[in-house]
């Protein structure tokens, strides 16, 4: 092989490896990414059972029942309420009437089992995905104004 052919062969095989990796990355992305939804979308968009999603909304007032490490509460967007169960310790700033994002999946039509609960970690922090979606759909108008203000 001449010097030029050698160089081309090397560049070709390197590109092949990178391309394979990129295809692999794309497949992994399809398999692992989770969508962000609000409660009314769970009802309207028929989210499959056990599909990992992130659910954002407001912890409904007077809905939080805790028993040791087990927590039941409703996540609402002022139109639909979704019952959520979580076992573990909720974050310090988890409160009723406040924004929350729960990660997990629907285990049946009436229960969302959370594997992770995310609340604000300082008073300026607003879950941006959620506020954007609430504003776009005009959900809970008073609440998000207050949250982003």
């Amino acid at each position, binding site marked *: 092989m001449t*010097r030029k052919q*050698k*160089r081309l062969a*090397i560049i070709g095989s*390197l590109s092949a*490896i*990178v391309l394979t*990796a*990129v295809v*692999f*990355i794309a497949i*992994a*992305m399809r*398999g*692992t*990414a*989770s*969508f*962000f939804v609000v409660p009314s979308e769970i009802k309207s968009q028929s989210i499959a059972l056990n599909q990992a999603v*992130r659910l954002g909304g407001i912890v409904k007032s007077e809905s939080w029942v*805790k028993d*040791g*490490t087990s927590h039941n509460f409703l996540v609402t967007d002022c139109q639909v309420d979704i019952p959520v169960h979580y*076992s*573990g*310790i*909720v974050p*310090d*700033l988890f409160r009723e009437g406040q924004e929350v994002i729960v990660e997990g999946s629907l285990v049946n039509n009436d229960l969302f089992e959370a594997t992770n609960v995310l609340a604000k*970690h*300082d*008073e*300026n*922090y*607003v*879950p*941006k*995905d959620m506020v*954007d*979606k609430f504003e*776009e759909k005009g959900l809970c108008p008073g609440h998000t104004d207050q949250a982003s203000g």
Partner: protein
Amino acid sequence: MLSIELGHFALILAFALSVVQVGVATYAWQRPNEGSFQFVRQASMLQFLLVLLSFAALSVAFVTSDFSLKLAYEHSHSLQPTLYKFTSVWGNHEGSMLLWVLILTLFGAAVAIGGSNLPKPTLNLVLGNQGFLAFAFIGFTLFTSNPFERLPEMPLEGRDLNPILQDVGLAIHPPLLYIGYVGFSVCFSFAVAALISGKIDGAWARWVRPWTMASWIFLTLGIAMGSYWAYYELGWGGWWFWDPVENASFMPWLTGTALLHSALVMEKRGALKIWTVLLAIITFSLSLLGTFLVRSGILTSVHSFATDPSRGLVILGMLTFFICGAFLLFAWRAPTLKAGGLFAPVSREAALVFNNLFLATATIAVLVGTLYPLVLDAFTGIKISVGAPFFDLTFGALMVPLLLVVPFGPFLPWKRASIAQASKRLFGAIVISFVLTVIVSAYLWEGFSLTPLGLLLGFWVIIGSLTDLVERSKLFKVAPSVSLRRLAGLPKNVWSTSLAHMGLGMTVLGVVFVMTYETETITTMEPGQQLETYGYSVRFIDEIDTAGPNFTSERATFAVAPIGSTEKTLSSEKRNYPARQMPTTEAGIKTFGLSQIYISIGDRVGENGRVVRIWTKPWILLIWLGAVVMSLAGAYSLTDRKYRIAAPNLAKKQQLGAAR
């Protein structure tokens, strides 16, 4: 006393000076003359002093709780301990930009002083480019994020720093990380200077290497420190979340590591020139991308202080300008560079290309996972989140071949090598790591998984890396005293390569151990109650209400020990910071050997019970110790006289050449 206005004025002067510096450097590039060269050097140093003065003025205002300064009012409190008053300076958007600029000008001044051995036109171009960066970032700080804004009326009390940031971690993590991030600006400036002048050779690699190494050391420590801080402060027991902000610091680390290795090939063999220059540009571009992601407010995380979205556009503009500018320059000048030496598909060079290939691809994986959700949201409004499963899968898979090859590197000679020969010399390491893997996996068997593969990689990288030292010192073959003498006499680069690779292996082993064997127990406990969990005994001693300078606290004390050993006590708290009405959780952590037990308390249950969350973290310290070993190995290689001696010789040769 330093006044706030003085600091403000110093920053404006530094900005004006950067404009002049760029102008004079451009002039000196076209018409080389000693006077202009001198001016550019001195301007770089003066600029640093001005920014330092400005930073000092801001710090004084914070430490003396001068709440007429808007920033101090918003982010400090008179009851905070002095250390936190000082660290509050950069615990906010404006102040952290000033810290960024301070480090940028520090590196400019360091190049001006340390680069006195460089050919003057090269130094001039490098400093001109640093001046241009300073112009952009000081301008950004002054016009969109001015830290020196005053309030018309002085409030009596400040609003306190976010309690999560009230920790010694804030004193260490951001400065280390910024030194690492911003240090790569020097590599960037060298790359741009090389492209403008068209002169790229082994000497260029030798100039750039110490700066790359220094930045890399600080970035390594900064990331490790950030990881440990998140681990103990956030109370979730996790040490790495694949949070976009963490990724933003990890990407320049990956390409910076690649750059260290490719610069080696360029220095020793004159090959990979174009790629090395490109890597230098990419690495700093990723640092800028990180700054953009964190400072623009498009991400919400612990790191993003509430920011004004218009700033994001300005940073995006600057980012686009520098990255596109550098890539255009690259596209225009790179074809004129002469290709370097040839090498066989199996050789030291090829191994380093392999390293670069996998590090670069892993960077692509992290980049895609970090940016894809943002891009998708911007174009379609669909909101997805890409979390740990994606990164564990892609990044993990890409690391397997890389880690397998790491120990081979030092055993392959330049130009042409043989895998069979290298394997023969590594045979002992292969056998030992297999045996260790079998023993450990059998002892801790938890069913079929990829764990043994991970363990094998960890042991293999550690033992394989040390084999080079063992072989060169003829350990076990000659008398121990002779071996010791041989070890002491080994070249510094042999030591640093071995130790850095060993550190990598330690981190890998720690990660595999924690991911597989960590345990989590959530339960309720009453004072006096004792329980046993995964080999540890935990006794809840008592709980008291107490208070710190600016918070109140419920503190639970536990006695913990691996079953059968002496107990140690730890306390875990729930704090409340009244200035912000914000509660935090302070985890209690105790170390036993390389392992830790980690306890967070939750809500009260019944009369005086508590929800407690107990993690055991086997060998977790290896994760951070590995990073520390890597940094120390890097620091040791920096002491190599080669980097101080070779440059002046070269400069002299060129001057002689010019005289002829």
